C-alpha cells in the first residue's frame, strides 16, 4: 500500500512538473525566437562560473589536504617503503603541477573566450612547433619517471636472500590469515593442500623433516625489527587454499596476492617497532595490520591480521614460546599425519 502511494506520488509529481514546464514553454514561445539558443548573456555567465569553479575547486582540494592529510598512512615502516614514499611524493609533485597548470588554462580560457555576438574566433588549425613541444616535454618527463620507477621496482622485486632473512609463510583462506615460522633451520617444510586435515591446517607433509620445527600461529604476525646496519630481512612465502586474497601491509608499503596453486613472494626489512610507532604517532592504541585487499567473499571487509613489530630480543623470546609442528619427541614416531600415497610436490617452495 505504501509502495503504491509512493509510485502514485512520483507519477503525479512528474505530471505536475511537465505541465509547469509546458506553461513556461508556451509563454516563451509567445515571445518568439529560438529560446534554447545560447545568448551572449548565457555565455558570459557560464564563463564566469568556470572561473568560480576553478577557485572553488582548488579551495576544496586545499581544504582536503589540510583536513585529510593528517589521516593518511604515517611514514613507511619498512626500508623499501621509505624509498617508495620518496618516489611517490616525487611523482605526486609532478602530476600536481601538471594538474594545476592545465586546469588554470582550461577554465581560464573558458572564462576569457566566452562567446560575444560581435566577435569572431581566431582560425588556428595547427602549429607544428607547439605540438612538438607538448609531445617531447611529456616524453622527457616520462622517461625520468619510468627510469626511477623501474629502478626501484627491480630493487623491491629482486628475490630475497633466504639465508639472510627470517622466512615466514602467510597462508590465506576465507576469511583469515595463518602464519608459519620456519623454525630453527629457517626452512619451511613442504606442504600440500591434500593434507589439510584436522589440526594440520596448512597441510604440512610430516615426511619432510624441515617442517618439523615449523611453528604455526593464528591471530597475529610478529616481525623482528633489526638495527639499521643489520641487512637481515623478512621473507614471506604466500599461499592460499580457496580464492585469491591479497596480503596487504599498508604501513610497510608491501602487497602481494595469494593465489591458489602457486606460492607468491615478497620481502622487506621492517624498520619501526609497534612501540616506536605508537610514540611517533602519540597514539597508545596504534597497531599495524595486514588487511585482505582482493575481493574474496562476503566477509572480505573483516579479513585482517594484527601485526606486532618488535625488537629482535622480544621476537626471539616470543617465538621460543610457540609450539613446534612436530616436536622432536613425537617426530621420531610420526603417526596419523602421514598418508599412504605420496603427495605431489608443492610448487615453488
Amino acid at each position, binding site marked *: 500500500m505504501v509502495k503504491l502511494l509512493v509510485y502514485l506520488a512520483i507519477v503525479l509529481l512528474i505530471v505536475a512538473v511537465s505541465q509547469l514546464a509546458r506553461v513556461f514553454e508556451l509563454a516563451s514561445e509567445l515571445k518568439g525566437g529560438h529560446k534554447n539558443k545560447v545568448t551572449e548573456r548565457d555565455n558570459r555567465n557560464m564563463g564566469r562560473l568556470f572561473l568560480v569553479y576553478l577557485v572553488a575547486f582548488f579551495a576544496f582540494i586545499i581544504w582536503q589536504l589540510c583536513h585529510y592529510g593528517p589521516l593518511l598512512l604515517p611514514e613507511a615502516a619498512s626500508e623499501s617503503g621509505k624509498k617508495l614514499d620518496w618516489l611517490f611524493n616525487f611523482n605526486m609533485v609532478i602530476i600536481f603541477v*601538471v594538474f594545476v597548470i592545465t586546469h588554470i588554462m582550461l577554465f581560464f*580560457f573558458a572564462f576569457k*573566450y*566566452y562567446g560575444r555576438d560581435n*566577435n569572431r574566433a581566431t582560425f588556428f588549425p595547427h602549429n607544428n612547433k607547439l605540438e612538438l613541444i607538448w609531445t617531447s616535454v611529456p616524453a622527457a618527463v616520462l622517461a625520468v619517471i619510468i627510469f626511477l620507477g623501474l629502478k626501484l621496482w*627491480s630493487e623491491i622485486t629482486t628475490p630475497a636472500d633466504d639465508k639472510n632473512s627470517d622466512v615466514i609463510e602467510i597462508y590465506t583462506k576465507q576469511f583469515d590469515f595463518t602464519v608459519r615460522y620456519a623454525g630453527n633451520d629457517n626452512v619451511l617444510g613442504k606442504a600440500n*593442500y591434500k593434507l589439510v586435515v584436522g589440526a594440520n591446517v596448512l597441510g604440512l607433509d610430516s615426511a619432510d623433516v624441515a617442517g618439523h620445527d615449523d611453528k604455526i600461529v593464528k591471530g597475529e604476525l610478529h616481525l623482528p625489527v633489526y638495527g639499521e646496519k643489520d641487512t637481515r630481512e623478512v621473507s614471506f612465502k604466500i599461499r592460499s587454499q580457496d580464492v585469491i586474497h591479497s596480503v596487504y601491509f599498508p604501513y610497510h608499503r608491501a602487497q602481494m596476492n595469494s593465489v591458489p596453486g602457486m606460492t607468491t613472494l615478497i620481502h622487506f626489512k621492517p624498520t619501526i617497532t609497534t612501540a616506536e610507532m605508537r610514540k611517533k604517532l602519540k597514539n597508545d592504541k596504534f597497531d599495524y595490520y595486514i588487511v585482505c585487499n582482493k575481493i574474496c567473499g562476503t566477509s572480505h571487509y573483516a579479513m585482517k591480521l594484527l601485526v606486532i613489530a618488535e625488537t629482535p630480543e622480544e621476537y626471539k623470546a616470543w617465538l621460543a614460546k610457540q609450539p613446534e609442528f612436530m616436536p622432536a619427541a613425537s617426530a621420531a614416531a610420526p603417526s596419523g599425519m602421514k598418508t599412504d600415497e605420496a603427495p605431489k610436490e608443492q610448487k615453488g617452495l
Partner: protein
Amino acid sequence: MSMDIHATHDLNDAHDAHHDHEHHHEESFVQKYIFSMDHKTISRQFLITAVIMAVVGMMMSVMFRLQLAWPHEGFALTNFILGDKWAPKGVLDPNMYMALVTLHGTIMVFMVLTGGLSGTFSNLLIPYQIGARDMASGFLNMLSYWFFFASSLVMLLSCFIESGPASGGWTVYPPLSAVKEFMPGSGLGMTMWLVSMSLFIVSSLLGGLNYIITVLNFRTKGMSMTRLPLTIWAFFITAILGVLSFPVLFSAALLLIFDRSFGTSFYLSDIIVNGAPLEQTGGSPILFQHLFWFLGHPEVYIILLPALGLASEIISVNSRKPIFGYRAMIGSMLAIGFLSFIVWGHHMFITGMNPFLGSVFVFTTLLIAIPSAVKAFNYITTLWKGNIQFNPAMLFAIGLVSTFITGGVTGIILADSALDIPIHDTYFVVAHFHIVMGLSAILGMIGGVYHWFPKLFLRKMNKTMGHIHFWLTFVSAYGVFFPMHFLGLAGVPRRYYTNSEIPMFDNLVDINVLITCFAILGALAQCIFLFNFFYSMFRGEKAEQNPYHSNTLEWTTPMKHTHGNWPGALPVVHRWPYDYSKPGETDDYIPQTVPLRPGEVDGGGHH
C-alpha cells in the same frame, strides 16, 4: 553554401532510392519502432535502454554509498527497493552489497558506456556524418540491438533470483566466481552474468563489424579518411578495438563456464572446498586475469574514445574554431588504440607475475601518457581565442577535458609498478578510474545527447535545465571522487562492506559521509536531466535545420526521419569538417558540401 547535389550517381545510391520506393509506405509499427533496421531508430533504442540501465546502475551506487557512510543503519529507500530479504529493516545485507558493487560496475562499463555510448552515437552519426543512407547491414545492426537488449534483460533478471546476482566484483576473478560454495552470488547469479556477457559480446561484435565496414566502404564522394570528423575516427578505432578484444573475453567466459559446469580446471588448482580438496586441479587463476584484461584494458578505451570523439566535435563547433591539430588527434587516437593492447599487465603487478614482465608493462603503459597529453593540450588550445558558445553540450565537453586530465595524471602513479604496490586495489584506484573513464565517458555521452538531440528526436532540450544539470553534476562528480584519493592513500581497500571492522580506518568516517552526500546530490541532479530528456522528446522546442551552424553532414539532412537520410542524391564533400571562422569568409562556418574556392587549401592548410 550551395549544396552540390547533382554530382553523385553511384550504384549504391540508385539501389537505395529504388528500395525506398518499394517499402516505404508498408511499414507497420513493429517494423518502424521495434524490429527496425534504420540506424536512427536503432540509435534511439540503444540510447533509451542505456538511460534505463544507467538509472539502475546509479540507484545501486546510491544504496551502497548509504551503507558506506552510515554502516549498519537502516534506510527506508534501501528497504523499499531491495525488500526485507536483502535489506532487513533497511540495513543492506553484505552479500547484496557485494552484488550491488558487482552489477554497478558491470552495468556501467558494459551496458551504459560500451553498448549505450557506442551503440547510440556510432549508429546515429556514422551514416549521417559520412554521407551514407544507412549502415552496411541494417539487419545485423538490428540484431546487435536485440542481443544488447537480451543481455541487459538477463543481467536485470539475475537480480530477482533467490541466491542473488553475481557478486564477485565486475572482474569476476575465479576461483571466487568459479566455485559456488565460495559465495552465494557465485551460483545461478554468476551463470546468468556469464550468459548476459556472452550475449553482450555477440551484440558488440555485430555492431563493431558493421561500423568498420560502413566507415570503410560507405563514405560519400569526396569524404576521404582525412576529411572524416573526429567522431567517426573515434568510433572507427573503437570498433576495431572491440572486434579484436571482445572475442578474448568470450574465450575467458567460455573457459569459466566449462570450469563451473563441466568439471574442467582451466583456472582451478590446489583448492579446498568445505574442508575437502577439490578434484579439479592443475589450472591457473592468473590465466583468467590475462584473458580478462586483454579485453579489459582496450575496454577502457572502447569506453573513452567515443566520448573523446564526441567532445572533439562539440568543442570545435562551440568554440567556433577548427579542432587544434586534427591530424595529431587522429594519430593520438591510433597510438592509444594500438598501445591499449599491450598494457593489460598493469592490472596484475602484484599477482605474482614475473617482475620483468611487469617492467615491460610499466613502459608501455606510461607511453600512453604521451598521446593522451597531446589530446588534452589540443583541446585546451582549441578553446584559446575561441568564441565559445556555452551550450549545455559544451559545458559537458569542457568537464570531460577536466576529468580526463585529473584522472589521467593519477594513472601515471598507478602505471608505475613500484608505486602501485601500496595503492593497488585501494580507493585510489577507484578514484582514478571513475574520474578518467567513468566521468569522462559519461560527461561526453551526456554532452553528445544534448548536442545531437535535434538529430535524435527532432527537438531541442531545454537549455536552462541543461546548464543547471551540468553544474550540479560537475560539482558532485569531483565531490564524490576527489576525496577517494585520500581514502586510498590512507590504505582503504575497495569492495569493503564497511570500514568499521578494521580499527585503522576508524578516523575516516567523515570522508565517507562527505562522499555520500555528494553522491546523493549527483543522483538528484540526474533527475533534472531525465525530466528534460523525456519531456523534450515529446514536447521540446522544434529544432531548426542546423542549430549550431555546424559543418558536418548530419545537419544537411532535413529535420525529419526518413529512410535513406537524404531525400535526393547523397551530398558530395569538398573539404574537411573544421572550417570554422576561416579568414576572408562572411559566415563563421563552411559546411563540408561547399566546394573549395580556387586556390583554397583544404584541411586548415595555408595558401
